[in-house]
């Protein structure tokens, strides 16, 4: 017998719904205001703050594009080159980070060695252990190893499994039945083959999700390139330079907003294309049994 669900909304959900509607309105309006204001004339922005632009000034985007440069030594790096560096930085780092977490997750969950407990415990402790202010030391070490200010240096630095995603992979591999790999083993498959052609396809969705999450965070990250990779400015770093450069062409607020919106477009497209994956189900399996 089907029980009809109650129609009325519980009080708690009513309050939460109201809160979330308010949140959506504020966020939506802020973005809307930002986009429309980026089309305002420089003088108009001062006296017509709230309304729509009286005359739509598209030149703001032209100025933003032309002045979107990062200084590298004596030369200027423009948007196209920054796009390349962004792709290399975000794509490369996201791939090595995901691959490292995945490899370690697999190794520590599918094989029974004492080292596994040590590794898992170490990650748990390293994640909560606040070793503050190691950045200067990191720079010194990078300089010693000739990795400072190189793209490969960044990839090496991000090939790291001290992350919550290591635990995500660990939990997922642990949950996969042994029968898959045993069946393959009887058919004569080796360890690498089992890992690459059987186990990886099974966790493909998680792999892509983690990759995309890493990708977005590296794409948006300007603080690491600002410290460690100044010769290869990414778009996010370019926006940082753009934001704090005081020139008559770039400092007006509508131009600033135009620059910000311009570089938001790639990430917006990525979000629209992979919305489901980016917001996919990821859990640590941290439930009480």
């Amino acid at each position, binding site marked *: 017998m089907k029980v009809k669900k109650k129609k009325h909304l519980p009080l708690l*959900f009513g309050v939460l719904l109201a809160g*979330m509607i308010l949140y959506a309105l504020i966020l939506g309006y802020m973005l809307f205001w930002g986009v429309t204001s980026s089309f305002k004339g420089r003088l108009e922005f001062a006296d017509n703050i709230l309304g729509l632009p009286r005359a739509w000034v598209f030149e703001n985007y032209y100025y933003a594009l032309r002045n979107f440069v990062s200084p590298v030594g004596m030369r200027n790096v423009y948007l196209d080159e920054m796009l390349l560096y962004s792709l290399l930085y975000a794509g490369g780092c996201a791939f090595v980070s995901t691959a490292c977490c995945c490899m370690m997750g697999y190794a520590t969950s599918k094989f029974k060695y004492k080292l596994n407990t040590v590794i898992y415990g170490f990650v748990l402790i390293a994640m909560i252990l606040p070793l503050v202010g190691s950045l200067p030391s990191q720079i*010194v070490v990078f300089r010693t190893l000739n990795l400072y200010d190189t793209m490969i240096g960044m990839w090496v630095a991000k090939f790291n499994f001290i992350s919550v995603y290591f635990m995500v992979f660990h939990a997922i591999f642990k949950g996969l039945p042994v029968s898959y790999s045993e069946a393959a083993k009887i058919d004569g498959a080796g360890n690498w083959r089992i890992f690459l052609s059987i186990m990886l396809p099974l966790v493909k969705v998680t792999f892509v999700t983690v990759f995309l999450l890493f990708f977005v965070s590296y794409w948006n990250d300007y603080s690491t390139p600002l410290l460690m990779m100044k010769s290869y400015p990414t778009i996010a770093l370019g926006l940082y330079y753009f934001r704090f450069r005081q020139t008559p062409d770039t400092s007006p607020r509508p131009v600033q907003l135009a620059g910000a919106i311009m570089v938001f477009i790639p990430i917006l497209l990525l979000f629209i294309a992979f919305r489901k994956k980016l917001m996919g189900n990821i859990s640590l399996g941290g439930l009480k049994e």
Partner: protein
Amino acid sequence: MKRIKNIEKCDFFYKLKRKLKDGIYTLEVALHNKLKRKRKNTASIERENKLNLLFYISLVTLPLLQVVVFYFYVNFNSFFLAFQEYNPVTLRYDWALWKNFDNIWFFVSREKTLLYCFRNSALSYVVTLFISLPLALLFSQYIYKKGPAGGFFKTVLFIPSIIPEMIMTTMFLYFADSFIPATVKGIFGKEIAGLLTQGNTTMLITLLCYSVFISFGGNIIMYSSTMSGIDKSLVEAAQLDGATQMQEFWHITIPMIYPTLSTFITVGVAGIFTHQLSLFSLFGADGNAYNEVWTIGYFLYSRTVYAGSANYPELAAYGLLMTIIAVPLVFTVRYLLSKFGPKTD
């Protein structure tokens, strides 16, 4: 007759002998087979173990090597760096024991900057713990229980976390500094300064509100997907008993996701010392931000950005001091969470 009897007797012994021989032979064969198979088995198991070990080593070696260099060595080096100073002649770091700490003491005794940093960082954690986190959990419960338009709000709450920080802060800065004063003037006819204007008392509150505003994204995804793993029968039982949503949230959801929750709270403690309250994206170099709103994370990061080799030891010393405060704090929080957390029953 006697002869016949003898023949029968012989026959009997003969048969017995044959039978015994056959038996021994079968036993031998069986034993031989068994032993051979066993030998073969141990050999193949050993081989497989070897292969497994080789595969395991090939997977873990590089990641472990990376951790040894970029985690252990970097942090040890940071510790030693705190007791060294830069020698501009040899371009090396020489031992200088307490010099960096003396400099820090000199700075602390003259200026209130570090005091502000501690206050604001602590405040930011309190806000995260008592405002952002409960809100994130409640919103996650709403999404997990499939409240009206839950999917839509999940997306909306997620958006600020994928928009690059620089873009969000650019928009927010102008929104707070231009839009809000203009709106207040339009509605109340009162002139107010921009919420993020240097030196304005509203600055810290605005920054804290903003940090709550952008905090939901990934947390909500993590919590709501952990919640979706909760045993349905438990929830149904509670509903049959007439539990309200709030009761269900408090007595089922929270205890069930407690392991994930406590991990996140503990990891968050480290955030006290790294969280920048978006100050660097909003104001850039340290001269531009009013020092009463600084946080420890902002202080250390902005100094590192503008530091040269000569400043690294002093910054490492700051780091060491913060670590000495942070580590016991983290373990206290962890202990308290395990002691006062919900028990499994």
